[in-house]
């Protein structure tokens, strides 16, 4: 109830802010929404956000299975490898800047990075930071489901001559599909909405929707807050519209 009240209060507050660019005038206006949808930078931000979200989620999901496989028999390695789960996103971005930013450790080690990563227009820096942070999270989620039952089935298949690829395709993938799908949805929702990582390692243009909203609040214009609230409502709508039906589909497939 507390979460419901605070969360719905926040949503109503955001809608109210987006419709009252001048809080002192009090009357409802659509100007912030009109400005938002008339701004080509916002369109670019939506496309960029979707691109970065899809890339970071797909790469994280693809890497999570081999990483979980590497960790499943070694508790000590699991503790170390999953340390990034506890490390805040902002801190992973700081570490990325110190390693792969201009003048960073990687730059010094190899005498100049072959490609630009931090602040790259392609969003490569953002994707790398999210992959570093989310692969351990997804791997941990998979390990929770990679229990003895699945292991016994794998062993039985190996005893009967199934190769590693066949075991992976017919035993591991079906067993881990649901947790991987649900974890990936959570990752996608987070990547689409958070903005400390794009602010630190992303390009100045295009923005993500979240950094676009933040920039809107920093202009000396009463309408800034309203535009930011409208942009963030679009981001929230996008995330909910994608993840809720996807989660429902995953639930249905699980039976």
């Amino acid at each position, binding site marked *: 109830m*507390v*979460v419901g009240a*605070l*969360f719905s*209060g*926040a*949503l*109503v*507050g*955001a*809608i*109210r*802010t987006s419709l009252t660019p001048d809080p002192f005038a009090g009357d409802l206006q659509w100007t912030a929404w009109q400005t938002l949808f008339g701004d080509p930078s916002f369109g670019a931000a939506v496309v960029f956000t979707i691109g970065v979200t899809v890339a970071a989620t797909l790469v994280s999901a693809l890497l999570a299975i*081999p*990483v979980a496989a*590497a*960790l499943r*028999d070694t508790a*000590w*390695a699991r*503790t*170390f*490898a*999953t*340390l990034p789960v*506890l*490390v*805040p996103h*902002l*801190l992973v971005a*700081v*570490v990325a*800047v*110190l*390693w792969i930013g201009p003048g960073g*450790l990687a730059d*010094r*080690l190899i005498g100049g990075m072959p490609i630009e990563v931090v602040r790259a227009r392609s969003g490569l820096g953002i994707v790398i930071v999210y992959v570093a942070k989310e692969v351990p999270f997804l791997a941990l989620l998979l390990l929770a489901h990679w229990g003895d039952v699945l292991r016994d089935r794998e*062993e039985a298949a190996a*005893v009967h001559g199934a190769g590693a690829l066949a075991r992976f395709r017919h035993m591991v993938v079906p067993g881990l599909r649901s947790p991987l799908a649900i974890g990936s949805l*959570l990752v996608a*929702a*987070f990547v*689409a*909405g*958070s*903005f400390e990582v794009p602010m630190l390692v992303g390009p100045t243009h295009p923005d993500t*929707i*979240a950094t676009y*909203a*933040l920039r809107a609040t920093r202009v000396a214009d009463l309408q800034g807050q309203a535009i930011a*609230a409208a942009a*963030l409502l679009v*981001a*929230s709508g996008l*995330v*909910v519209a994608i*993840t*809720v039906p996807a989660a429902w589909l995953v*639930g249905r497939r699980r039976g």
Partner: protein
Amino acid sequence: MVEGRRHVVTDRLRRERWPALLVAAAGTVPLAVLPLRAAADVWRAPALLPQQFGTRGLETVLAPGTRVGDAVVTSLVVGIVATAVALVIGWPAARSVARTTPARRTVLLVGLGLPLLVPPYATGTGLTRWLLELGLTDSVPGLVAAHLVYVVPYVVLTLTFAFTAELAGLEEAAEVAGADRLRAAWLVTLPTTAPAIGTAALLGFVVSWSQYGTSLAVGGGRLTLPVVLLPFVERDPQVAAALSLVFLAPPVVGLVALRRTMARR
């Protein structure tokens, strides 16, 4: 013969540990740059190691009366209060989520998870208008209220797994043996769910401690550690690295303490 082959397969699967070593290194080695950068008073490119080590970064962070020190205290207070409130709210909520019908449980869990899908800055921006009207912006209670939107779902989800059917049976047995509900909770429920409470507390604190978007929107003049840290990354990487170590300390200390407590049980 099949049993013998099974052992050979299992042994081979378990012997191949180098991938685990590689993955563990990938998770930890990058963090080593933080103490190195924090202790580098002079580190000009392209040198691989600092030209001069020193404590300038830590001194800046720990200097009394600075915005940085105040931000650390605010983050700690908000994190502790938000976690405590979330545990008090989350305990009965998790209990009823765990013991309701599967259909109702799904609805409740989806409802609880919904805030996690929405950008934190959106929640913060939306709450700001109400908090302004209540005179709670730039205040610890305002920050706690905003953080609760994210802390409570994690705490409830973690605690829900502790309220198993086995625990329900133990509670019932205690009540049959004459213990009232309060005594049964003290003697049976609390000790059994203690590991989950510890995990939920750590997770809740880390979620609050890491909040950036909500704190930026609601905090205003009352800064938290993540909000103070970000501008330093480009302005002064040494201070940013020192601040990052402060940022990293509570989750790591909490994790070690939790593991030790669980190992002792």
